[in-house]
C-alpha cells in the first residue's frame, strides 16, 4: 500500500464509515418519526442519554462499551416513557414534554459528570455535541493486499462495528415490518383492531431510535444525530409520494451527505489554503441542511419554486381567459373593444393570447380570431351557466353572483381538461337576461 492510500485508510476511512453508517441508520428511522410528527424525539433521546452513560460508568467502573450502551439505551427509553407520561398527565403539548425532559436529563448528566465521574472519564459536553470522529484512527497491516482479508476489517474501530450492527438490525426490522410500521403510522386504530398492536410497534420503533441514537451519537455527536433523523427523511418526502421510495431516497441522501460532508470537512479547508480541517460532523450536518433546503425549494412537484411556477401559470391562464371573455362580450354588445393593455402584465397576457392564435391586432386594437372566439364562447357560457345555477339552485340574488362566476368559469376537470359546466338552467337566459351561448 502506498503512503497516501494508507494515510486515507488509516485516518479518513474509519470516520468516513462511521459518519455514513450513522447518517443512513438515523435517516431510515427518521422517516417514521417525521411522518408521525415526532422528530423531536431523536433530539430528546440523544441529549438525555448522558445521565445514562454517566451512571453506567459509575456502576461498572469502566468505559467498556457494553455497559455504556445499555445505560444509554435505558436512559433513552426512560425518556420516551417520561415524555408520554408528561404529555398525558401534565397537559402540555408533545414538543414541550420532549423539551423539558431532555433539558432536565441532560443537565442531570452534566451535574453527575461534575460531581461523580468527571475526573476519570473523558466525556465532556463538546464530545456529546460533536462526537469523536476526529479521533477515530485505524492501523491495518501495511502490506499490500491486507484489505482483502476479513481479519483486517475486524480490527476497525469499535464505533464503526457498533454502527454497522445497529444498521443491520434497523434494516432487518424495517424490512420485515415495513407494512406493519406503515399501517401503525397511518392508522393506529385500524392497525390495533387488526391485531397489529400500535403501542407495541411504537415501543419497538422507539427502542430502535434509542439504539441508533446511542450508537451514532457516540461517534458523530448529537447535533448530527438530530439533523439526520429529520433532514434526509424530510428532503425525501418532498421528492416522492410513496413511502418505500421515500425510505430509499432518504438513505441515498443521507449517504451522500455523510460522504460529501466528511470529505468537504477534511479536505476543503486545505484546498482553500486554510490551516486545518473543520469538524466533520458539523460539515455533514451543514450538507444535510443544504440538501433539505434545495429539496424544499426545487423538488419537482412539491417544491416551492415548482408551486410558485404553477401558480403564476395558472393566473396567466385566468388573465388570458378573462381577456378573451371581455373581447367576446364587447363583440356581443357591438361596442368597440377598449384598449386592454394598461398594466405591464396585460401586455404579457395579450402577447400570449396572440401567440396562441386566439387574438389578433387590427390597427392596434385586439380582436378575437375564430379560434379565440370558440374558446371565449365556452368561457362566457360557463360564466352564465354558473350565474343561473347560483341564482336558481343556490337562491342567491342576481346581483351577487357575478364575482363568484368570474372565479368558477375557469374551473376545468383535472383529468380531462374540459371546462366544468353546471347543469342547464330552466330559463334560456342568464339572470341578467343575456343569452347563454351554445357549446
Amino acid at each position, binding site marked *: 500500500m502506498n503512503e497516501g492510500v494508507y494515510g486515507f485508510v488509516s485516518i479518513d476511512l474509519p470516520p468516513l464509515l462511521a459518519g455514513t453508517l450513522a447518517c443512513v441508520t438515523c435517516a431510515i428511522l427518521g422517516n417514521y418519526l417525521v*411522518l408521525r410528527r415526532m422528530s423531536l424525539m431523536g433530539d430528546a433521546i440523544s441529549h438525555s442519554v448522558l445521565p445514562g452513560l454517566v451512571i453506567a460508568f459509575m456502576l461498572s467502573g469502566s468505559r467498556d462499551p457494553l455497559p455504556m450502551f445499555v445505560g444509554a439505551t435505558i436512559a433513552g427509553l426512560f425518556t420516551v416513557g417520561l415524555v408520554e407520561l408528561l404529555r398525558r398527565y401534565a397537559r402540555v403539548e408533545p414538543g414541550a414534554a420532549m423539551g423539558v425532559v431532555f433539558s432536565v436529563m441532560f443537565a442531570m448528566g452534566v451535574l453527575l459528570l461534575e460531581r461523580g465521574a468527571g475526573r476519570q472519564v473523558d466525556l465532556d459536553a463538546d464530545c456529546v455535541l460533536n462526537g469523536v470522529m476526529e479521533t477515530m484512527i485505524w492501523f491495518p497491516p501495511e502490506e499490500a493486499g491486507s484489505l482483502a482479508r476479513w481479519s483486517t476489517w475486524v480490527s476497525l474501530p469499535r464505533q464503526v462495528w457498533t454502527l454497522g450492527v445497529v444498521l443491520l438490525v434497523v434494516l432487518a426490522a424495517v424490512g*420485515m*415490518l*415495513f*407494512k*406493519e410500521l*406503515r*399501517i401503525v*403510522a*397511518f*392508522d393506529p*386504530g*385500524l*392497525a*390495533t*383492531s*387488526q*391485531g*397489529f398492536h400500535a403501542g407495541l410497534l411504537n415501543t419497538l420503533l422507539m427502542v430502535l431510535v434509542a439504539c441508533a441514537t446511542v450508537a451514532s451519537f457516540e461517534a458523530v455527536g448529537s447535533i448530527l444525530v438530530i439533523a439526520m433523523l429529520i433532514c434526509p427523511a424530510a428532503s425525501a*418526502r418532498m421528492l*416522492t*409520494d*410513496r*413511502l418505500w*421510495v*421515500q425510505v430509499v431516497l432518504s438513505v441515498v441522501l443521507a449517504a451522500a451527505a455523510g460522504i460529501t460532508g466528511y470529505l468537504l470537512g477534511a479536505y476543503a479547508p486545505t484546498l482553500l489554503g486554510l490551516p486545518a480541517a473543520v469538524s466533520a460532523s458539523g460539515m455533514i450536518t451543514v450538507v444535510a441542511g443544504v440538501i433539505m433546503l434545495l429539496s424544499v425549494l426545487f423538488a419537482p412537484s412539491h417544491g416551492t419554486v415548482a408551486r410558485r411556477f404553477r401558480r403564476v401559470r395558472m393566473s396567466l391562464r385566468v388573465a388570458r381567459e378573462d381577456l378573451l371573455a371581455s373581447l367576446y362580450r364587447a363583440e356581443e354588445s357591438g361596442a368597440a373593444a377598449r384598449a386592454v393593455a394598461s398594466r405591464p402584465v396585460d401586455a404579457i397576457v395579450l402577447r400570449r393570447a396572440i401567440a396562441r392564435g386566439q387574438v389578433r391586432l387590427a390597427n392596434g386594437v385586439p380582436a378575437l380570431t375564430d379560434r379565440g372566439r370558440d374558446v371565449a364562447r365556452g368561457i362566457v357560457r360557463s360564466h352564465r351557466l354558473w350565474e343561473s345555477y347560483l341564482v336558481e339552485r343556490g337562491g342567491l340574488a342576481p346581483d351577487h353572483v357575478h364575482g363568484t362566476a368570474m372565479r368558477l368559469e375557469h374551473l376545468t376537470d383535472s383529468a380531462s381538461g374540459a371546462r366544468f359546466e353546471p347543469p342547464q338552467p330552466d330559463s334560456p337566459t342568464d339572470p341578467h337576461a343575456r343569452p347563454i351561448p351554445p357549446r
Partner: protein
Amino acid sequence: MNASRIRPDAHPASMLAGRPEHSADSPLSVHAMTVAYQRKPVLWDVDYDAPRDALVAIVGPNGAGKSTFIRACLGLVPRVSGVVEFWGRPLREVRRRIGYVPQREAVDWDFPVSALDVVCMGRYARIGWMRPVSRADRDAGAACLDRVGLRGFEHRQISQLSGGQQQRVFLARALAQESDLYFMDEPFAGVDAATERAIVDVLRELRASGRTVICVHHDLQTVPRYFDAVMLMNMRVVASGPVGTVFTPENLQRTYGGRLTLLAEASEAVARAERG
C-alpha cells in the same frame, strides 16, 4: 386463529351466552359496559345485542359517546367494566371477522401512500405479520376500489383525492377486510351525493351477503331509509331495536332533548373525585 377452526357449537369462552338477555349468535353482545376518558365516564352501563344481517345506525347528540362505544368494543379504548363478545367469543379470537372504518379526520391524508396502498391495509390481518402484500392481495384491493367507483384511482396519492373519494377509499378498505361485522364511524360525514349513494349501495350489498354493519350516523332524516335498526345513545343506551318501533319522536326527544343532567353531573363528580 383461523375462522374455519372456530367450532360453532361450543362457546367455552362465552360469558354472556348463558344470560337470557343475550344471544350467542348475535354478532355483537355488550353487557354492562362503562367507559371513561381521563377518569370521566362517557358511557354508562351499556347493554346491547346487535341483530344479524342488518344495517344499524348509532344516533345521538355530540358527546353522546357514539365513537367511544365503537372504539371500546374494538378494544381501542379501555373499558372500566363490562363484557363485549362477538358471536359469543372474545375479540381476540375473532379479530379477522371484524372490520373498522374510522372517521376520515382520524388519519393524516398527506401520508405518502396511494389509494391502493390504503385499501390493501384492510388485508394486513389476513396477510399476517412480516409477510409482504402479494399480487393477489393487490388485485383484491383494486377490485374493492372498483366496487366503490374508484377504478383508475389506484395509484393516486391520497391527498389528491376529494373528501368523498377519500371516504370511498376507506369503504373499499373495509370491503378488502372481508369481515362479517363492520363498525363505521360517520361514513356519510361531509360526502357528496354520488358518494352517499355509492356508500348506501355497498352497505346494502354487505347486508345482502349476510354482514352486519354498525354506523355512527348524524343525519336523522335518512335513518329510516338507510338503516334497519337503530341505537339511540346519550351517555347510555336510550333505546335500541328496529327502526320502525324504536325511531319514534318520543325516543328522539329522550335522546336529544331532555338532558340527563344528573348523569352528566355525576360524570363530572366522578372525574373530580378520582383525580383527587
